[in-house]
Protein backbone atom coordinates (compact mmCIF):
# COMPACT_ATOMS: atom_id res chain seq x y z
CA UNK A 1 0.00 0.00 0.00
CA UNK A 2 2.98 2.22 0.48
CA UNK A 3 3.26 2.65 -3.26
CA UNK A 4 0.03 4.73 -3.32
CA UNK A 5 0.93 6.86 -0.28
CA UNK A 6 1.69 9.95 -2.30
CA UNK A 7 -0.43 9.15 -5.35
CA UNK A 8 -3.40 11.41 -4.64
CA UNK A 9 -2.65 13.56 -7.67
CA UNK A 10 -2.86 10.49 -9.94
CA UNK A 11 -6.35 9.65 -8.68
CA UNK A 12 -7.44 13.23 -9.28
CA UNK A 13 -6.23 13.10 -12.92
CA UNK A 14 -7.92 9.71 -13.35
CA UNK A 15 -11.14 11.18 -11.96
CA UNK A 16 -10.95 14.07 -14.46
CA UNK A 17 -10.61 11.55 -17.31
CA UNK A 18 -13.52 9.45 -16.07
CA UNK A 19 -15.79 12.47 -15.66
CA UNK A 20 -14.69 13.84 -19.03
CA UNK A 21 -15.31 10.48 -20.72
CA UNK A 22 -18.75 10.14 -19.17
CA UNK A 23 -19.61 13.71 -20.16
CA UNK A 24 -18.54 12.96 -23.76
CA UNK A 25 -20.65 9.82 -23.94
CA UNK A 26 -23.62 11.59 -22.36
CA UNK A 27 -23.48 14.67 -24.60
CA UNK A 28 -22.96 12.52 -27.68
CA UNK A 29 -26.00 10.38 -26.87
CA UNK A 30 -28.01 13.58 -26.46
CA UNK A 31 -26.86 15.29 -29.66
CA UNK A 32 -26.70 12.45 -32.18
CA UNK A 33 -30.16 11.90 -33.67
CA UNK A 34 -31.68 8.55 -32.77
CA UNK A 35 -32.02 7.45 -36.38
CA UNK A 36 -28.38 8.18 -37.25
CA UNK A 37 -26.80 4.92 -38.36
CA UNK A 38 -30.13 3.19 -38.94
CA UNK A 39 -29.20 2.37 -42.57
CA UNK A 40 -25.67 3.77 -42.78
CA UNK A 41 -23.57 6.76 -41.79
CA UNK A 42 -26.47 9.21 -42.06
CA UNK A 43 -29.74 10.16 -40.39
CA UNK A 44 -32.27 7.46 -41.35
CA UNK A 45 -35.24 9.76 -40.85
CA UNK A 46 -33.93 12.08 -43.57
CA UNK A 47 -35.25 9.58 -46.14
CA UNK A 48 -38.83 9.84 -44.86
CA UNK A 49 -38.53 13.64 -44.62
CA UNK A 50 -37.44 13.90 -48.27
CA UNK A 51 -40.22 11.50 -49.30
CA UNK A 52 -42.80 13.64 -47.48
CA UNK A 53 -42.51 16.61 -49.89
CA UNK A 54 -45.78 17.53 -51.62
CA UNK A 55 -46.26 16.60 -55.28
CA UNK A 56 -46.85 19.25 -57.98
CA UNK A 57 -47.31 17.05 -61.05
CA UNK A 58 -50.36 14.86 -60.46
CA UNK A 59 -49.36 12.22 -63.04
CA UNK A 60 -51.32 11.26 -66.17
CA UNK A 61 -53.21 8.55 -64.28
CA UNK A 62 -54.92 11.20 -62.16
CA UNK A 63 -55.90 13.19 -65.29
CA UNK A 64 -57.21 10.16 -67.11
CA UNK A 65 -59.48 9.16 -64.23
CA UNK A 66 -61.75 12.13 -65.01
CA UNK A 67 -60.93 13.34 -68.52
CA UNK A 68 -61.85 10.15 -70.36
CA UNK A 69 -63.15 12.12 -73.37
CA UNK A 70 -59.75 13.73 -73.96
CA UNK A 71 -58.06 10.36 -73.48
CA UNK A 72 -60.34 8.92 -76.17
CA UNK A 73 -59.50 11.77 -78.55
CA UNK A 74 -55.75 11.47 -77.88
CA UNK A 75 -55.64 7.70 -78.22
CA UNK A 76 -55.85 7.60 -82.02
CA UNK A 77 -53.67 10.68 -82.64
CA UNK A 78 -49.97 11.35 -82.89
CA UNK A 79 -49.93 12.81 -79.37
CA UNK A 80 -51.18 9.58 -77.75
CA UNK A 81 -47.91 9.10 -75.84
CA UNK A 82 -47.63 12.72 -74.67
CA UNK A 83 -48.64 13.03 -71.03
CA UNK A 84 -51.24 15.70 -70.17
CA UNK A 85 -48.94 17.71 -67.93
CA UNK A 86 -46.25 17.92 -70.61
CA UNK A 87 -48.34 20.75 -72.10
CA UNK A 88 -50.80 21.67 -69.33
CA UNK A 89 -48.12 22.02 -66.64
CA UNK A 90 -48.24 20.84 -63.03
CA UNK A 91 -51.87 20.17 -62.06
CA UNK A 92 -51.76 18.42 -58.67
CA UNK A 93 -53.73 21.28 -57.08
CA UNK A 94 -56.41 20.95 -59.75
CA UNK A 95 -56.48 17.17 -59.28
CA UNK A 96 -56.94 17.58 -55.51
CA UNK A 97 -59.70 20.16 -55.88
CA UNK A 98 -61.09 20.18 -59.44
CA UNK A 99 -63.93 22.52 -58.50
CA UNK A 100 -62.05 25.59 -57.38
CA UNK A 101 -58.63 25.28 -59.05
CA UNK A 102 -58.89 25.59 -62.83
CA UNK A 103 -55.90 25.08 -65.14
CA UNK A 104 -54.83 28.13 -67.13
CA UNK A 105 -55.87 28.36 -70.79
CA UNK A 106 -52.91 27.49 -72.98
CA UNK A 107 -51.45 29.52 -75.83
CA UNK A 108 -50.69 27.24 -78.76
CA UNK A 109 -48.41 29.89 -80.31
CA UNK A 110 -46.01 29.42 -77.36
CA UNK A 111 -46.60 25.76 -76.67
CA UNK A 112 -46.42 24.03 -80.04
CA UNK A 113 -43.13 25.62 -81.14
CA UNK A 114 -41.39 24.42 -77.97
CA UNK A 115 -41.34 20.98 -79.51
CA UNK A 116 -42.02 21.53 -83.21
CA UNK A 117 -39.83 24.53 -84.11
CA UNK A 118 -37.27 23.28 -86.62
CA UNK A 119 -33.79 22.76 -85.22
CA UNK A 120 -30.89 20.94 -86.82
CA UNK A 121 -30.16 19.04 -83.59
CA UNK A 122 -33.62 17.45 -83.44
CA UNK A 123 -34.07 13.87 -84.59
CA UNK A 124 -34.68 13.81 -88.35
CA UNK A 125 -37.94 11.88 -88.10
CA UNK A 126 -39.54 14.34 -85.69
CA UNK A 127 -42.16 16.63 -87.29
CA UNK A 128 -40.70 20.15 -87.38
CA UNK A 129 -41.74 23.45 -88.95
CA UNK A 130 -40.19 26.88 -89.28
CA UNK A 131 -43.03 28.65 -87.49
CA UNK A 132 -42.34 32.05 -89.11
CA UNK A 133 -43.30 30.88 -92.59
CA UNK A 134 -45.45 27.86 -91.76
CA UNK A 135 -48.79 29.44 -90.89
CA UNK A 136 -48.64 33.14 -91.86
CA UNK A 137 -49.14 34.10 -88.23
CA UNK A 138 -52.25 31.98 -87.76
CA UNK A 139 -52.55 30.24 -84.39
CA UNK A 140 -51.60 26.58 -84.58
CA UNK A 141 -55.00 25.42 -83.38
CA UNK A 142 -56.71 27.07 -86.37
CA UNK A 143 -55.81 23.93 -88.31
CA UNK A 144 -54.40 21.42 -85.79
CA UNK A 145 -56.29 20.14 -82.78
CA UNK A 146 -53.59 19.68 -80.08
CA UNK A 147 -55.07 16.45 -78.71
CA UNK A 148 -55.05 14.86 -82.19
CA UNK A 149 -52.96 17.16 -84.38
CA UNK A 150 -53.09 15.55 -87.84
CA UNK A 151 -55.25 17.45 -90.36
CA UNK A 152 -57.45 14.98 -92.19
CA UNK A 153 -59.66 17.06 -94.52
CA UNK A 154 -59.27 16.21 -98.19
CA UNK A 155 -57.70 19.40 -99.55
CA UNK A 156 -55.05 19.83 -96.83
CA UNK A 157 -54.17 16.15 -96.53
CA UNK A 158 -51.01 16.63 -98.60
CA UNK A 159 -49.72 19.39 -96.32
CA UNK A 160 -50.47 17.35 -93.20
CA UNK A 161 -48.66 14.33 -94.58
CA UNK A 162 -45.62 16.46 -95.41
CA UNK A 163 -45.51 17.85 -91.86
CA UNK A 164 -45.88 14.55 -90.08
CA UNK A 165 -42.94 13.07 -91.96
CA UNK A 166 -40.67 15.92 -90.90
CA UNK A 167 -41.24 18.18 -93.92
CA UNK A 168 -39.40 21.53 -93.88
CA UNK A 169 -35.74 20.95 -94.20
Amino acid at each position, binding site marked *: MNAFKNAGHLFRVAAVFVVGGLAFVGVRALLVPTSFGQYG*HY*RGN*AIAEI*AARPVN*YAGHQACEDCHTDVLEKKKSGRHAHVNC*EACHGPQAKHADDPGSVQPAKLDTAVLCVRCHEANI*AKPKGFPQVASADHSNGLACDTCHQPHSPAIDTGETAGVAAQETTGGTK
Partner: protein
Amino acid sequence: MNLTRRHLLILLPAAAIAWKHVLAGTPEASPNYTMSQHWWGMLIDLPRCIGCGNCVRACQAENDVPDGYFRTWVERYHVTDYDIENPHVDSPDGGKKGFPLSKEEGGKNFFVPKLCNHCADSPCTQVCPVGATFISPDGVVLVDKTYCLGCRYCVQACPYGCRFIHPKTMTAEKCTLCYHRITKGLTTACCEACPTGARQLADLKNPNDPIHEFLKTHSVQVLKPYMATHSKVFYNGLDGSVR
Protein backbone atom coordinates in the same frame (compact mmCIF):
# COMPACT_ATOMS: atom_id res chain seq x y z
CA MET B 1 -36.99 36.22 -15.12
CA ASN B 2 -35.89 34.72 -11.84
CA LEU B 3 -34.77 31.17 -12.57
CA THR B 4 -34.05 29.27 -9.37
CA ARG B 5 -32.24 25.97 -9.17
CA ARG B 6 -35.55 24.26 -8.36
CA HIS B 7 -37.20 25.61 -11.53
CA LEU B 8 -34.24 24.60 -13.65
CA LEU B 9 -34.35 21.05 -12.31
CA ILE B 10 -38.04 20.84 -13.17
CA LEU B 11 -37.50 22.31 -16.66
CA LEU B 12 -34.56 20.11 -17.68
CA PRO B 13 -36.42 16.78 -18.05
CA ALA B 14 -39.18 18.52 -20.03
CA ALA B 15 -36.61 20.05 -22.37
CA ALA B 16 -34.92 16.66 -22.73
CA ILE B 17 -38.22 15.04 -23.77
CA ALA B 18 -38.92 17.84 -26.27
CA TRP B 19 -35.40 17.51 -27.75
CA LYS B 20 -35.90 13.75 -28.07
CA HIS B 21 -39.02 14.49 -30.12
CA VAL B 22 -37.10 16.84 -32.42
CA LEU B 23 -34.37 14.26 -32.95
CA ALA B 24 -36.85 11.50 -33.75
CA GLY B 25 -38.03 13.46 -36.84
CA THR B 26 -41.11 12.77 -38.94
CA PRO B 27 -42.54 9.27 -39.29
CA GLU B 28 -42.46 7.20 -42.50
CA ALA B 29 -44.23 9.13 -45.28
CA SER B 30 -45.19 6.26 -47.59
CA PRO B 31 -46.37 3.27 -45.57
CA ASN B 32 -46.89 1.05 -48.67
CA TYR B 33 -43.36 1.53 -49.96
CA THR B 34 -40.58 -0.90 -49.09
CA MET B 35 -37.11 0.44 -49.82
CA SER B 36 -35.47 -2.97 -50.13
CA GLN B 37 -37.70 -3.88 -53.09
CA HIS B 38 -36.41 -1.10 -55.38
CA TRP B 39 -33.17 -0.03 -57.02
CA TRP B 40 -33.79 3.13 -59.00
CA GLY B 41 -32.13 4.39 -62.14
CA MET B 42 -33.08 6.13 -65.34
CA LEU B 43 -32.99 5.39 -69.04
CA ILE B 44 -32.27 8.22 -71.49
CA ASP B 45 -33.11 7.36 -75.06
CA LEU B 46 -31.08 10.03 -76.88
CA PRO B 47 -32.49 9.51 -80.40
CA ARG B 48 -35.85 10.55 -79.00
CA CYS B 49 -34.72 13.79 -77.30
CA ILE B 50 -35.98 16.90 -79.11
CA GLY B 51 -34.43 19.46 -76.75
CA CYS B 52 -37.77 21.03 -75.82
CA GLY B 53 -36.66 21.71 -72.24
CA ASN B 54 -39.88 20.31 -70.74
CA CYS B 55 -37.85 18.23 -68.27
CA VAL B 56 -35.91 21.26 -67.04
CA ARG B 57 -39.07 23.30 -66.51
CA ALA B 58 -40.88 20.38 -64.86
CA CYS B 59 -37.97 19.82 -62.48
CA GLN B 60 -37.95 23.47 -61.47
CA ALA B 61 -41.73 23.50 -60.93
CA GLU B 62 -41.72 20.26 -58.97
CA ASN B 63 -38.70 20.89 -56.78
CA ASP B 64 -38.57 24.70 -56.39
CA VAL B 65 -35.14 24.84 -57.99
CA PRO B 66 -33.95 28.48 -57.89
CA ASP B 67 -33.48 30.36 -61.18
CA GLY B 68 -30.08 29.85 -62.74
CA TYR B 69 -29.51 26.52 -60.95
CA PHE B 70 -30.33 23.12 -62.38
CA ARG B 71 -30.97 19.65 -61.06
CA THR B 72 -31.35 18.56 -64.66
CA TRP B 73 -30.41 20.35 -67.87
CA VAL B 74 -30.13 19.70 -71.59
CA GLU B 75 -26.94 20.18 -73.61
CA ARG B 76 -26.76 20.60 -77.38
CA TYR B 77 -23.77 19.03 -79.09
CA HIS B 78 -22.34 20.07 -82.43
CA VAL B 79 -19.59 17.76 -83.64
CA THR B 80 -17.75 18.59 -86.84
CA ASP B 81 -16.72 15.69 -89.04
CA TYR B 82 -12.99 16.16 -88.56
CA ASP B 83 -12.84 17.08 -84.86
CA ILE B 84 -14.75 14.53 -82.82
CA GLU B 85 -12.62 15.20 -79.73
CA ASN B 86 -13.69 18.83 -79.49
CA PRO B 87 -17.46 19.10 -79.71
CA HIS B 88 -19.15 22.50 -79.42
CA VAL B 89 -21.55 22.28 -76.48
CA ASP B 90 -24.11 24.88 -75.49
CA SER B 91 -26.92 24.89 -72.98
CA PRO B 92 -28.54 28.35 -72.85
CA ASP B 93 -30.30 28.63 -69.47
CA GLY B 94 -30.02 24.86 -69.12
CA GLY B 95 -32.23 24.44 -72.17
CA LYS B 96 -35.18 25.66 -70.11
CA LYS B 97 -36.41 27.95 -72.88
CA GLY B 98 -35.48 25.64 -75.73
CA PHE B 99 -32.57 26.20 -78.09
CA PRO B 100 -32.04 28.97 -80.64
CA LEU B 101 -31.20 27.92 -84.19
CA SER B 102 -27.66 26.58 -84.52
CA LYS B 103 -25.10 28.92 -86.05
CA GLU B 104 -23.05 26.02 -87.34
CA GLU B 105 -24.26 24.06 -90.32
CA GLY B 106 -23.48 20.45 -91.07
CA GLY B 107 -21.70 18.04 -88.77
CA LYS B 108 -23.49 15.98 -86.20
CA ASN B 109 -26.03 17.67 -83.94
CA PHE B 110 -27.96 16.22 -81.03
CA PHE B 111 -29.25 16.90 -77.52
CA VAL B 112 -28.09 15.26 -74.28
CA PRO B 113 -30.20 15.63 -71.14
CA LYS B 114 -28.18 15.39 -67.95
CA LEU B 115 -29.02 14.82 -64.32
CA CYS B 116 -27.56 13.17 -61.23
CA ASN B 117 -26.40 9.69 -62.24
CA HIS B 118 -27.35 8.22 -58.84
CA CYS B 119 -24.08 6.31 -58.84
CA ALA B 120 -23.94 3.10 -56.85
CA ASP B 121 -20.36 4.07 -55.86
CA SER B 122 -20.76 7.82 -55.75
CA PRO B 123 -17.73 10.06 -55.07
CA CYS B 124 -20.01 12.75 -53.59
CA THR B 125 -21.27 10.61 -50.71
CA GLN B 126 -17.77 9.36 -49.95
CA VAL B 127 -16.33 12.83 -49.37
CA CYS B 128 -19.11 14.17 -47.12
CA PRO B 129 -17.49 14.80 -43.74
CA VAL B 130 -20.73 14.76 -41.72
CA GLY B 131 -22.92 12.07 -43.26
CA ALA B 132 -25.29 14.59 -44.80
CA THR B 133 -25.35 12.92 -48.21
CA PHE B 134 -25.85 9.24 -48.75
CA ILE B 135 -27.23 6.61 -51.07
CA SER B 136 -30.55 5.34 -49.78
CA PRO B 137 -31.26 1.59 -49.55
CA ASP B 138 -33.25 1.91 -52.80
CA GLY B 139 -30.36 3.45 -54.72
CA VAL B 140 -31.09 7.18 -54.71
CA VAL B 141 -28.37 9.66 -53.75
CA LEU B 142 -29.96 12.16 -51.38
CA VAL B 143 -28.96 15.16 -49.26
CA ASP B 144 -30.09 15.62 -45.66
CA LYS B 145 -30.24 19.41 -45.67
CA THR B 146 -30.65 19.68 -41.91
CA TYR B 147 -27.25 17.99 -41.58
CA CYS B 148 -25.40 19.61 -44.50
CA LEU B 149 -22.74 22.16 -43.57
CA GLY B 150 -22.41 23.61 -47.06
CA CYS B 151 -18.70 22.78 -47.25
CA ARG B 152 -18.91 22.11 -51.03
CA TYR B 153 -16.74 18.95 -50.96
CA CYS B 154 -19.48 17.03 -52.75
CA VAL B 155 -19.94 19.77 -55.36
CA GLN B 156 -16.28 19.38 -56.28
CA ALA B 157 -16.31 15.59 -56.07
CA CYS B 158 -19.17 15.00 -58.53
CA PRO B 159 -17.58 14.16 -61.90
CA TYR B 160 -20.81 15.10 -63.68
CA GLY B 161 -21.32 18.58 -62.20
CA CYS B 162 -24.73 17.66 -60.83
CA ARG B 163 -24.58 19.43 -57.48
CA PHE B 164 -24.83 23.05 -56.42
CA ILE B 165 -25.14 25.11 -53.26
CA HIS B 166 -28.64 26.51 -52.83
CA PRO B 167 -28.28 30.30 -52.66
CA LYS B 168 -30.76 30.66 -49.76
CA THR B 169 -30.18 27.63 -47.53
CA MET B 170 -26.45 27.43 -48.44
CA THR B 171 -26.67 23.64 -48.37
CA ALA B 172 -25.90 21.15 -51.13
CA GLU B 173 -28.74 20.49 -53.58
CA LYS B 174 -29.19 17.91 -56.27
CA CYS B 175 -31.63 15.73 -58.14
CA THR B 176 -33.54 13.50 -55.71
CA LEU B 177 -34.92 11.41 -58.59
CA CYS B 178 -38.19 12.93 -57.33
CA TYR B 179 -37.95 10.70 -54.28
CA HIS B 180 -41.22 12.16 -52.97
CA ARG B 181 -42.93 10.96 -56.17
CA ILE B 182 -41.38 7.56 -56.83
CA THR B 183 -42.13 6.45 -53.27
CA LYS B 184 -45.81 7.23 -53.97
CA GLY B 185 -45.89 5.18 -57.16
CA LEU B 186 -45.55 8.15 -59.54
CA THR B 187 -42.79 8.69 -62.06
CA THR B 188 -40.38 11.64 -61.80
CA ALA B 189 -41.53 15.10 -62.90
CA CYS B 190 -39.07 15.13 -65.82
CA CYS B 191 -40.28 11.75 -67.09
CA GLU B 192 -43.89 12.83 -66.64
CA ALA B 193 -43.32 15.98 -68.70
CA CYS B 194 -41.13 14.43 -71.40
CA PRO B 195 -43.31 14.41 -74.55
CA THR B 196 -41.32 11.81 -76.50
CA GLY B 197 -40.44 9.24 -73.85
CA ALA B 198 -36.76 10.10 -74.09
CA ARG B 199 -36.52 9.88 -70.30
CA GLN B 200 -37.83 6.85 -68.48
CA LEU B 201 -37.63 6.05 -64.79
CA ALA B 202 -36.27 2.54 -64.26
CA ASP B 203 -36.60 0.22 -61.29
CA LEU B 204 -33.75 -2.24 -61.72
CA LYS B 205 -35.07 -4.56 -58.99
CA ASN B 206 -38.51 -4.87 -60.59
CA PRO B 207 -38.34 -7.83 -62.99
CA ASN B 208 -41.35 -6.51 -64.94
CA ASP B 209 -39.77 -3.11 -65.64
CA PRO B 210 -39.30 -2.62 -69.42
CA ILE B 211 -35.75 -1.42 -68.69
CA HIS B 212 -34.49 -5.02 -68.59
CA GLU B 213 -35.69 -5.78 -72.11
CA PHE B 214 -34.28 -2.45 -73.32
CA LEU B 215 -30.84 -3.02 -71.76
CA LYS B 216 -30.69 -6.48 -73.34
CA THR B 217 -31.50 -5.30 -76.83
CA HIS B 218 -29.72 -1.93 -77.11
CA SER B 219 -26.17 -0.60 -76.96
CA VAL B 220 -26.47 1.33 -73.75
CA GLN B 221 -23.70 3.37 -72.09
CA VAL B 222 -23.20 5.45 -68.99
CA LEU B 223 -21.38 8.78 -68.77
CA LYS B 224 -17.67 8.63 -67.86
CA PRO B 225 -17.51 4.87 -67.23
CA TYR B 226 -13.77 5.22 -66.51
CA MET B 227 -14.66 7.03 -63.27
CA ALA B 228 -16.00 3.68 -61.98
CA THR B 229 -18.92 5.38 -60.26
CA HIS B 230 -21.39 2.68 -61.36
CA SER B 231 -23.80 5.24 -62.71
CA LYS B 232 -27.44 4.18 -62.93
CA VAL B 233 -28.47 6.66 -65.63
CA PHE B 234 -28.24 4.69 -68.86
CA TYR B 235 -27.91 6.45 -72.22
CA ASN B 236 -29.04 4.81 -75.42
CA GLY B 237 -27.30 6.04 -78.58
CA LEU B 238 -24.66 8.02 -76.69
CA ASP B 239 -22.07 9.58 -78.97
CA GLY B 240 -18.40 9.21 -78.10
CA SER B 241 -17.96 12.97 -78.08
CA VAL B 242 -20.26 13.47 -75.06
CA ARG B 243 -18.36 14.49 -71.94
